[in-house]
């Protein structure tokens, strides 16, 4: 490498800019997603589910992959947003769905903010327990207040007005799919800016070494609260999308299985480079769909088996097996992941 080609200042700027540049793989990915609108019309229903799941997984990646906060109850925010959207529509508080979506997300963000202090202290195990507890409490609340939420029967009578007053949801789910994709893409772009920003860098620092982070002047707790709130917003939006596209909300939006599934998705797809949730959601949903087709009642057994195998084999070994593929994929998707640039890193 010639050192006298570019001045040091230029080199520094170049290196920093490299992170945020769009990789070829990223462009291909989103073009494929765009194409799916037109090329796969018959699969829009399942694709909508994948999009919602992808957004949910993305929200967990923000706290797990970037800030290092483990949560076993992320469904709390998903469910809160889902019920918020349902109630806003059912009781005609906010009729326009996009506005209702934003308000539901904001409601989930508020919940995230209020519960964020719970994950600031304690070990990983404490965080697991506390986040699980919060999700269970919410489920109980929804169950008890059945005069409001419909309890175990679910929230009935949710009707969704046309988007922005113009685009009505149709039976074939095309409008719903495009709606979810647009929301996913916009929120993804914002998340992308966040992780490439100084704030995003500080999150990776907090995750890597919180002691050193505070020794550099970073208020660790404030950063964690911020990203936890943002992640709760994203999760709430994904829950609201589910309610709006299915016109129904039930207690299982808070379920433990939902929180566990999204963890599995991130394990499958990888954490810390933003696309893990998206790719993982595709893999997971297709796998689940295929398994449910084979054994409609017992597909959860095979999901459990996948979990066990993935952990046993270990992500390092899996990572090594497909190391070459993964490195090229990451290079294609751009170098804005939370891992290093030159050498292969092992994801913890």
């Amino acid at each position: 490498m010639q050192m006298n080609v570019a001045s040091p200042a230029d080199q520094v700027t170049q290196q920093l800019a490299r992170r945020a540049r769009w990789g070829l793989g990223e462009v291909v990915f989103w073009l494929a997603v765009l194409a799916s609108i037109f090329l796969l019309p018959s699969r829009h229903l399942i694709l909508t589910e994948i999009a919602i799941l992808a957004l949910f997984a993305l929200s967990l990646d923000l706290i797990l992959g970037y800030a290092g906060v483990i949560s076993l109850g992320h469904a709390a925010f998903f469910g809160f947003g889902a019920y918020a959207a349902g109630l806003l529509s059912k009781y005609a508080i906010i009729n326009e769905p996009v506005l209702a979506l934003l308000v539901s997300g904001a409601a989930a963000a508020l919940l995230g903010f209020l519960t964020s202090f719970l994950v600031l202290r304690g070990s990983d195990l404490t965080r697991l327990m506390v986040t699980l507890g919060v999700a269970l409490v919410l489920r109980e609340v929804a169950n008890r207040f059945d005069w409001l939420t419909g309890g175990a029967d679910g929230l009935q009578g949710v009707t969704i007005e046309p988007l922005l007053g113009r685009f009505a949801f149709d039976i074939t789910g095309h409008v719903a799919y495009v709606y979810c994709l647009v929301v996913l893409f916009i929120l993804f772009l914002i998340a992308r800016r966040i992780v490439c920003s100084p704030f995003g860098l500080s999150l990776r620092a907090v995750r890597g070494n919180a002691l050193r982070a505070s020794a550099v002047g970073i208020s660790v707790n404030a950063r964690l609260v911020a990203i936890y709130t943002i992640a709760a917003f994203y999760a709430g939006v994904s829950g609201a999308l589910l309610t709006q596209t299915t016109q129904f909300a039930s207690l299982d939006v808070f379920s433990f299985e939902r929180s566990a599934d999204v963890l599995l998705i991130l394990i499958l797809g990888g954490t810390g480079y933003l696309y893990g949730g998206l790719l993982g959601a595709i893999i997971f949903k297709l796998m689940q769909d295929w398994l449910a087709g084979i054994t409609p009642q017992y597909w959860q057994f095979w999901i459990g088996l996948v979990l066990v195998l993935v952990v046993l084999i270990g992500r390092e070994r899996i990572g090594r097996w497909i190391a070459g593929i993964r490195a090229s994929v990451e290079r294609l998707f751009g170098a804005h992941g939370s891992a290093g640039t030159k050498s292969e890193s092992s994801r913890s």
Partner: protein
Amino acid sequence: MTTVLETSGLVKRFGGIVATNNVSLQIAKGARHALIGPNGAGKTTVINLLTGVVPPTAGHIILEGEDITALSPHQRVRRGLARTFQINQLFADLTPLETIGLAVSERLGAGFDWWRLVGSKPGVVDEIVPLLERFKLADVMDERTATLPYGKQRLLEIAVAFACQPRVLLLDEPAAGVPEAERHEILATIAALPKDVTVLLIEHDMDLVFSFADRISVLVNGAVFVEGAPDDVARDPRVKAVYLGEAIDG
């Protein structure tokens, strides 16, 4: 002589153990103050107290006239007090460029900037470049910290503290664990630190201490045993006794 950092009656007890025993230090502005003492004397505890990692049982810490005893570590950094750790505390997955870029961005107030790219705030890159060059990290700026040789990591440890533009820099055994071949880089870097930065240095390497320090405090069993100019301390028989482990009477 203005005192830039002082402690008054600083005490730290861990259960029944008195790790820091009524330590009162006065560190002058621009000083090169060394803190030495046998193993287990409590030197790192003093640094931890000064930086707020550990709360004191009693006593006060005053930085440039302001009582910072109740402030959290990151707040003290913002007020110009930075440290290095005895065992490197770095970000394994970040590169030196990112590490220093982070420290600079934070100092320039970009910590919550979520929209702009790292380094795009005016002034950030201009600060990063001379830091990389001063600490000999320009050639490895894009490598993962975990893959760097130990000497480079140690330089990065000092660089990141320095990137906070501290008025008082606390160095906890900067040359510790560094192989012979790489020590001179560390020593030269420390010697070249600007005169207006006050340095408090913990070290075991006596060559470094006596060539660098203009004032030495000797810490024994958590208390300041002897304090003075390097020559005086070097000649003091009590100091030799403490280091050689002989019994001290009365």
